[in-house]
């Protein structure tokens, strides 16, 4: 008797073909053709779109995006790891509540949450009102690079906490008890056992935060005041305003390649080859 359950995977295969493989192919095709290409008969291949990107103007935008995304990722890690550790060590009854609180903001639309930050950070916003009420000087917070980073950290923090938490909570208590028996103190235990075993979760977390952060366009637009263009803004602009889909596509392809390289480097550090807390 043949196993027929695999047929249930076909709708998903189809889904991938229609909504992932085919669009990716189109992006690749656009990136390698000229603007004048109109249908199959007039198609003209070129590498001009990729060459155009190697202009200091665009390279700077790329570096800046990577820089801001990297800062956000580091902050997420510094905030998220202890949070995940505390949640995993919490009593079972509290643990679910803590996890729930972590996911709760994600029930609301990201755009709304980002708009809410605008009223918090604004010149006459909640924080500045509180400061002036206390007789303290007020700050320009909204529409700065700091606000952009903050928006990214706020929006993507759960993507760091969850995989790290999964890795930590799956840890074999027996190993920790063995370490205790052999006389390891708290710091040695953390450095030699807990940290290495949670690395797969950390790596998933870094990828899950870095990827959306480096390509976001709505956060720098709303919180950054459209002043510091990130690569996502450039792509959006090229598509929506300039109508240069070919150049926009080539930048998207370049971004994909960069993310792929980053992921393969990250996977080199991944000790747990069995899958563990990895998301893929």
């Amino acid at each position: 008797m043949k196993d027929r359950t695999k047929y249930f995977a076909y709708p998903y295969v189809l889904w991938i073909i229609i909504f992932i493989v085919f669009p990716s192919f189109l992006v690749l095709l656009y990136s390698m053709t000229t603007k004048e290409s109109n249908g199959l008969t007039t198609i003209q291949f070129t590498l001009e779109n990729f060459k155009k990107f190697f202009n200091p103007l665009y390279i700077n935008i790329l570096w800046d995006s990577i820089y801001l995304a990297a800062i956000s990722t580091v902050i997420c890690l510094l905030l998220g790891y202890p949070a995940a550790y505390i949640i995993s060590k919490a009593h079972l009854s509290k643990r679910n509540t803590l996890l729930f609180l972590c996911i709760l903001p994600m029930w609301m639309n990201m755009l709304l949450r980002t708009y809410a930050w605008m009223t918090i950070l604004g010149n006459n916003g909640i924080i500045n009102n509180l400061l002036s009420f206390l007789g303290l000087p007020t700050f320009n917070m909204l529409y700065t690079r700091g606000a952009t980073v903050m928006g990214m950290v706020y929006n993507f923090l759960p993507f760091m906490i969850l995989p790290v938490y999964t890795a930590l909570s799956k840890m074999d208590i027996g190993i920790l008890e063995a370490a205790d028996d052999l006389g390891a103190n708290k710091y040695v235990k953390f450095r030699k056992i807990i940290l290495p075993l949670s690395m797969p979760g950390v790596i998933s977390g870094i990828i899950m935060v870095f990827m959306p952060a480096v390509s976001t366009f709505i956060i720098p637009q709303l919180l950054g005041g459209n002043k510091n263009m990130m690569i996502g803004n450039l792509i959006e602009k090229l598509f929506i305003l300039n109508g240069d889909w070919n150049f926009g596509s080539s930048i998207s392809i370049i971004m994909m390649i960069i993310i792929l390289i980053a992921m393969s480097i990250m996977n080199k550090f991944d000790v747990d080859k069995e899958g563990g807390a990895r998301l893929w």
Partner: protein
Amino acid sequence: MKRKLILIAAVLCIVLIALTGCSKDQTQTLSILNYDIYMDKSLLNEFELKYGVKIKYDTYSTPEEMYIKAKAGASNYDLIISSEYMIERMINEGMINKLNFDNIPNYKYIDETFKNQPYDPNNEYAVPYFWGTLGILYNKNNVDASSDSWAMLWDENHSQRIIMMDSQRDSFGAALKLLGYSMNTVDEKELDEAKELLIKQRPLIMTYITDGAPDIMVNEEADMALVWSGEAVSAMAENENLDFVIPKEGSNIWIDAMFIPATTKNQELAEKFIDFLCTTEATLRNIDEVWYSTVHTEAINEVDEELLNNPAFNIPEEDIEKMEMFRDPKEFIDLYTERWTEMTAE
């Protein structure tokens, strides 16, 4: 293997039918593309009930964005409302249908001043909707507007409290006028000078935004903003510390008009909708919503006295004389776009 292929093909068919089958509905659909915050939406409902049709309503924020949306053809729009220079470009590119004015009897209410304009010299393609200008909305308590000049937007005393528009023609327009050039320049040197001026201005800017400036000004979070006149009227109604100035160097006069793109499948219905929007009642309700200056000869007689005294609504004749209408710079537009991208990426 063959069975698998058949199965995949079957599922593919089902998905495609599910995705495309929706249009078999008998009721007609009217697909509209308009600027954000640019119509009293209850009018849409009313039209739907009156004619038993469905309306699909999409919005955009700048004419450049509209052009891409209309051109990409993802949605076959039946009616678009946009600005004169983009209409001119689309007429030149054959993207707009001629109107049958027999279906638009209310066209007679449109003020003659706004007919026979350069973007549609023979009144064949478009029906004016609203008109207005570009100027500076400022807070009287913090800003000295006596200079009456675009240079106000470059005043270092208001660093981080100035809002510019995230719209290339408008922001370039202000810079070009300050330099004493035409807003429609096709001289690369002049455009480069304007770009340098805008780059110089960047450290002073709080945010580049479209549509959001009035809210920020009403909350007094910024000192001044480059805005369209209707935005100024609505902001001034909410906060009496705000005022509006049309700089002495001259400004832009624009006309937004309704037109039917060549992609339409429902020209007659779209014409009926244009006619519906040209009624006095619909116009008055739209004025109440968008606060721009009206092109309607009857509606103007019924607006409030207060509104007529507001120079951002009832724009003074001496200012109009110095205004310039945007024209389609044809291929040169690519240079505007390029310089604008360079400016924002700097």
